[in-house]
């Protein structure tokens, strides 16, 4: 499984990538939309884990751009929202079915990754 983690909190994605790699999941990371698009342009991933709020462009728009480049790529959204009502509405608008709320449980994330890839 090859995963791209996108979040402007560098310490978060680096720690998460390390924890995933310890569990046999290859994870690269990007801290901006521009960096994420550059990485996706050069190599393919099974799925991306995107923060909903990243600078300049929101995660939902980033997903659209990534999907245009890699139509087979799957997505999981991560949010720091206390209430997820608006988030659910926004996610539904761009057709994303999967999301998790920060702080993440690594077991939940991996289970969700498997669920997404099997869907």
């Amino acid at each position, binding site marked *: 499984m090859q995963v791209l983690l996108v979040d402007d909190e560098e310490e978060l994605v680096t*720690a998460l990538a390390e924890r995933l790699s310890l569990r046999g999941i290859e994870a690269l990371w990007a801290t901006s939309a521009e960096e994420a698009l550059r990485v996706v342009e050069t190599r393919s991933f099974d799925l991306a884990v995107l923060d909903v709020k990243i600078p300049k462009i929101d995660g939902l728009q980033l997903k659209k751009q990534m999907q245009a480049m890699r139509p087979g790529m799957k997505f999981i959204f991560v949010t720091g*929202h206390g209430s997820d009502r608006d988030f659910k509405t926004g996610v539904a608008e761009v057709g994303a079915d999967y999301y998790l709320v*920060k702080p*993440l449980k690594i077991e939940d994330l991996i289970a969700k990754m498997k669920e997404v890839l099997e869907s």
Partner: protein
Amino acid sequence: MNIQEVQIGLGGVQFFGKMAASISHEIKNVLAIINENAGLLEDICLMAERGKPIDPDRLKRLSGSVKDQIRRADHIMTVMNRFAHSVDEASVSIDVSEVLELLVSLSARFVAMRGVVLEVGKPAGAAITTFPFVLLNLLWLCLDYAMAVVGPGKTIELLAEKTGDGVWFRFCKLENMETDAAPLFPAEREAALGQALHAQILRDPAAREVRVLLAQRRNV
């Protein structure tokens, strides 16, 4: 309660809510980082139980990261506390630099999300008597307008200058003020806040700036 007071009250609640949501989002990020670092420590312990030696430098880096995040959270909560207390008194003497510092701290995430660079000039060493919460609300709306006007990748310069009768807050380097896409400014909400503070709000496309003149010793 007249229409203007209702407008200020409703707008104020919206402003407070927006800032509280941003702060809670920041705290969630801090908790998420601490959570992942704690998870990594658990992973390292599990590996040590299986015979892999522990690297002390790795542990130091992780504990340093947790401490950094605790300091970050402490700063966020200090800002939140100051902001919460800005509603306490309708007329209080406050240093201009404190107002700017609070505004910049509160708006940091919004500035980053919009991809704008906010440069803050050394503020005038002056105190003003005002309603801090209402002033912060007005300055936030000016900054929000400035960010909408300039767009991502551009710089906004924020200055506070002492005048004979008070303080000028200046939002400078605002490109694209004359485009059709630029929002109406000052709109009713800004005008109501300006009136309540006895402040003048000037939109000056020729100078590419928005200015707020807050006169001394006026109460809301």
